[in-house]
């Protein structure tokens, strides 16, 4: 796994917010009315995915990256 810096992790977390919020608007364009909890769930899923990549990257860094920071 690629190793992700804590700073990039933080920025990606911030990025999930507009994605989750606007996904509902986009769905609305197509006539799909998502309830508010859907936004919360999408947000949590995105956060879980990013956290997983971050943690895995820390535990199993690529060989060539392990030496660098």
């Amino acid at each position, binding site marked *: 796994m*690629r190793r*992700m*810096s*804590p*700073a*990039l992790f*933080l*920025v990606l*977390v*911030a990025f999930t*917010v*507009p994605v989750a*919020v*606007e996904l*509902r*608007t986009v*769905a*609305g364009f197509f006539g799909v*009315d*998502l309830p*508010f909890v859907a936004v919360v769930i999408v947000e949590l899923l995105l956060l879980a995915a990013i956290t997983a990549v971050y943690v895995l990257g820390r535990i199993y860094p690529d060989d060539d990256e392990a030496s660098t920071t």
Partner: protein
Amino acid sequence: MATFVDRFPEEAKVVQASFAVAFIALGIGALFGVVQALHRTDFLRIIDSVDYYTLLTAHGVLLALVFTIFFLVGLFTWAVARSFDRPLPDIRLTWAWFGLMTTGATLAAVAILAGLFPEIPMSADVLYTFYAPLQAHPIFYIGLAMFIIGTWMAGADWFLAYREWRGENPDDRIPLQAFMVLTTMIMWFVSTIGVAVSVVFFLIPWSLGLIETVNPLLTRTLFWYFGHPVVYFWLMPAYLLWYTVLPKLAGGRLFSDPLARVVFVLFVLLSTPVGIHHQYLDPGIAEGFKFIAMTNTMFLLLPSLLTAFTVVASVEHGARQRGGEGYLRWLGALPWRDPAFTGMALAGLMFAAGGFSGMINAGMNINYLIHNTLWVPGHFHMTVGTAVALTMMAGTYWLLPQLTGKTVYSRPIGLLQVVLWFVGMVFMSNAMHRGGLLGIPRRTAEPQYQNFDFATAVGSVGEIQAQIALGGVLLFLSVVIFLFNVAATWAQDRVDTPVDDRIPEPLSSSSGAPLVLDNLALWTAIAVVLVVLAYTLPLASIVTDGGLLGNSPAFPVSISVQPVVDAALSTLESAAPGVPIDVHSTDAAVDRLTEVIR
């Protein structure tokens, strides 16, 4: 290695002083911002709704005029001294404009805030757009005039520095940062004439009682003559940082110097003859003039799109220098740990979103949909409120060490701060845009009405309100953290090399730029011609229609409800003779109404 403060200690003091004033205004303005956000969403009402306009005026003036412009004059002073590589001609002149601007801003702020205290016979609840018929205390306008004259003196200071430099370097290209400063100031000189005429010839005499009436449409038009260029005045310091500093922070260098010059020249030409696009709904201006303003506005998209291309290309170049690869994976190689970089990158990204909502504002027909709704604050909190304000805060993390010789107190806290701003603004401005589409008005303390609900397409009004309130709180927190970090930096001890302040040469350097780009007189002349073409006929027709001094008295005027009550009483009496009317309750009603009016 010597940094700015070692080479130009006197200039560094002025820049630090300008930043200090800017940050004080930022702190007060942000406090009022969160109070408003919570008030109008009805989460927390600590002020009386009657005072809402006082706070809103203070918020607009302190943030959009004082914070941004004081940061700008500091930044430009830094840019002029470092890019000409010489001190300013006479530091007393520099301190003089700083003093004048600060005095003017203080007077205006005092006049506004006095409105919170009924015992002080002074107020200026005219909003930061301050056109008639709303009327402020003369001190407000006089402060504004001093502030603007101060910026003119600052411009003169930088042009004098240019003349000295030119004397010794007759054949050199103007250094890029200085070129940006000079072109921006040309635009500013051309555009502030409008507001200066409005303030000096109409608003000040009117508020002093020397003239009875004004022509409100004329003062509005003169305001917007200046009101669009001022948005570029806010934006140009951000562009200066994006073009010259951001690529360096990303690990690379600017892609093209000539292209950057073209962009700034386009802004000189096109910024002013578009102001009428803020008046699409004003009666009294013919549709044809509005159409011309719209066409010019659409041309104005060009330099911003050029900027997006050049800056992103330069940042990508930087990432590849740092070992980034792939179509998108290079993004991961950027220095996200650096709050200066991350803040500017997020600000630029949000500017793209703000640009899209700006295209809606600019379209004459779809503007009607969102005019004066909450959409508009949603738009400009992304542009001036983030693209500019966040770039300035982020830039501070790189500039302050050069100006003070001290390292930033905490870069991780800085990173958290810029990210918090981004998240807060996503919440607040997204909800403002959506609320505006539903017709929720801006500039309203209590946008809730009896027997009427805004119809929503997606989500509910309650969610929108909650999002605005949450966003406002996060933004305020971000400002508090920022101010703490800045104050703590100022309190540090000096070190030898506080920051790497070198700016590498652009990939495609100025030697390739056509010489005509540096011909400032030519661009000024064309800009003036365009302004004359765009404004002569509309102004002439406004004056012909309404007269130079018009016939509008000052607002707010106190209207008495007594005649209304009397009329109602006599109707009732004639309708039902003999039925005794409960005079007590009508008296109570009159009292309440008078209270409301006050």
